[in-house]
């Protein structure tokens, strides 16, 4: 077995096959689908889960209908990443849907307290966060099957539980290496799906959620990768696994940074920009209060304290940002910038309007603009999502 091919979901499914082989070796037998409602093209049954939750969980989580529309929407988003979709089909024994009665759309999910491999439960309040939660739990399932557990790992990792590492420099939390690796691996799946969503033909809402997930996870991925590289003690299987993992991670980091660091109009997708531009005649974007601006000669570095998000704007993006004053429509912003570079209103090129709209969309996706009665439903950022 090539352990280096186990980290990233493989198009030929060899990693899924290996996981199933390992679980079967421990006596696991996947129960058949018995006429229940299913997802993932009929491969994963939707089942109620009884008695597995803590008292606190039961207080806020109520069973959701098995035909909740967000389940299919989430599966459709995961389908944008075919290897992960196939892995869900192979590894998920069942999905138990719940609604979070606190009306948050952040999907919480569980996979390791049900006593059987492959069962996951997730809140379905939001389709995109549900999709991210499903792949996140699948990552945990994979690692568990490979032997990375909370008890001393039986394979891959050799670090003792008593040795802890700084998991997140912003919170100061310390955890043993196996937990750090679980967190890292699950976040890697989340980022990989987020990138697929941003690259795919998903709508503005999934794209906004995916961009926020990337912005949140990418810096932590990089930080934890350094800790793992420097401190993970690996057996032979682990060496192979992490060789493949870091190769995958390097690619993801490069693609993810391309979305986040270059917050400039030209980096935005033209199709989303043009769609947004059509809708922005009445939208008056307004910069979010509390964003710290650090200005340079040709650039601005923005810092959002409550998100710990920093990004730099080049001169073009800065010009758009400065005109997001709550009084100026996107079209008017385009005209003002056009005049600055010598265009009359009549000869304003569509490409410039599209780029301005793309920049505004990007600001919204990153949560940098105030909610707006017109902008919000058009861009899809205030439909109950938690920020």
């Amino acid at each position, binding site marked *: 077995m090539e352990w280096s091919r186990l980290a990233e979901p493989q198009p030929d499914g060899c990693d899924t096959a290996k996981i199933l082989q390992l679980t079967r070796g421990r006596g696991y037998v996947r129960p058949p689908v018995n006429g229940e409602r299913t997802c993932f093209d009929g491969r994963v049954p939707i089942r109620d889960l009884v008695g597995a939750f803590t008292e606190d969980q039961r207080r806020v989580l109520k069973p959701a209908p098995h035909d909740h529309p967000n389940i299919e929407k989430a599966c459709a988003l995961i389908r944008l990443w075919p290897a992960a979709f196939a892995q869900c089909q192979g590894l998920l024994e069942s999905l138990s849907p719940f609604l979070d009665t606190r009306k948050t759309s952040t999907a919480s999910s569980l996979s390791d307290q049900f006593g059987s491999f492959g069962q996951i439960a997730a809140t379905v309040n939001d389709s995109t966060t549900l999709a991210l939660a499903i792949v996140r739990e699948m990552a945990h399932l994979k690692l568990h099957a490979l032997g990375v557990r909370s008890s001393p790992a039986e394979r891959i990792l*050799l670090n*003792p539980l*008593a*040795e802890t590492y*700084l998991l997140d*420099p*912003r*919170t*100061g939390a310390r955890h043993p290496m196996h937990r750090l690796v679980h967190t890292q691996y699950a976040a890697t799946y989340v980022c990989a799906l987020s990138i697929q969503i941003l690259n795919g033909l998903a709508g503005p809402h999934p794209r906004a959620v995916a961009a926020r997930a990337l912005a949140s996870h990418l*810096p932590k991925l*990089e930080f934890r*990768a*350094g800790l793992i*590289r*420097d*401190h993970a*003690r690996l057996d032979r299987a682990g*060496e192979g696994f992490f*060789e493949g993992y*870091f*190769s995958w991670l390097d690619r993801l980091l490069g693609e993810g940074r391309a979305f986040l*660091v270059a917050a400039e109009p030209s980096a935005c997708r033209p199709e989303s920009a043009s769609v947004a531009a059509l809708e922005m005649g009445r939208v008056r974007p307004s910069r979010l209060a509390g964003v*710290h601006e*650090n200005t*340079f*000669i*040709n*650039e*601005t*570095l923005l*810092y959002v*304290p409550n998100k*710990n998000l*920093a*990004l*730099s*704007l*080049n001169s073009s993006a800065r010009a758009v940002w400065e005109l997001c004053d709550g009084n100026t429509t996107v079209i008017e912003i385009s005209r003002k910038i056009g005049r600055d570079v010598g265009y009359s209103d009549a000869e304003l090129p569509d490409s410039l309007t599209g780029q301005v709209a793309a920049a505004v969309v990007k600001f919204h996706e990153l949560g940098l603009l105030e909610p707006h009665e017109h902008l919000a439903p058009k861009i899809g950022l205030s439909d109950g999502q938690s920020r």
Partner: protein
Amino acid sequence: MDRAASPVPAWFRSCGGVPPRSAVTASASAAAGNGPGGHGTSVSPPGTLRIGFLGRAVAIDSDAPEVLAGVEPRFRHLLAPGAGQPLCRIEVRALPDHRYEFRNGGPAVEAKSLPNLIERLTYQITLRLMESRPELIWLHAAAVARHGQAVVLPADSGKGKSTLATLLCSRGWSFLADDIVPLDPATGLLGAFPRSPEIRHRPPNGSAPVRAQSMQKTLVDLEPADVCRQNVPARAVVFPAFSPASPLCLTPCSPANAALELLRGCLNFVHHGQGAVAYLCDWSRRVPAFTLAFSDPQEAASRIEGLSADFGAAA
């Protein structure tokens, strides 16, 4: 600026200059060349190693002389003899079968081998010393100095910062830090955290590509005279980006992007928050930054030297 004639800023004074090897207690020093041994019921008397930074020290106590002999080269330039109360005391005990356990105020942690133990102790010691000085901005970077001015090399692991820092030291530069650099926001000066550098052995050209993180590391033994013992201003920030097939390319990095990269490598951002953002933005406005893509470290080091010479001419 003449290094010997420059004033020593206040925040560095308590470090106490170049520590002599005698900072290692007699038992540890005597055991330094003995190689492995002393496992199980060691007959050597217990030894202590004190490693300090700006007046704060971590003490390593061990009944196994090979442990202190293994830690000492990594912190040779941070040894801090003295009898004051250390920040913490890490106790290391040898177990049968070449295993060890260490305790740092919590439950005992077992290490399966001496190299494994030394690496963990290095992490623990470094973390404790960093945490003892939270007012400094700790950057994930290497740094070297010449003529009283530093070039900072921030980068993720495997991008070549240690290799370049070591090469530049072999060309007469002074060593400030290999992996972690303290920046004092009160003075704007970089301090020395001269943990001995470790460089990776890269395969010869034409070999199959190997991940940087899987390459074996070797500790570089610097002479005390190679180590910069004063705080220095930064002359330039160079973000190294080693890649096996990359042509040499030095490109200016905009101040905002430099600030963003420095923030990404700010190891105690949780302590400073917005203060670090404001400070590193301001710092990036004053200190020019570059990205250096390279595959040949010698060429890259020469380019940094050329950059420094350009600055010298401009000054």
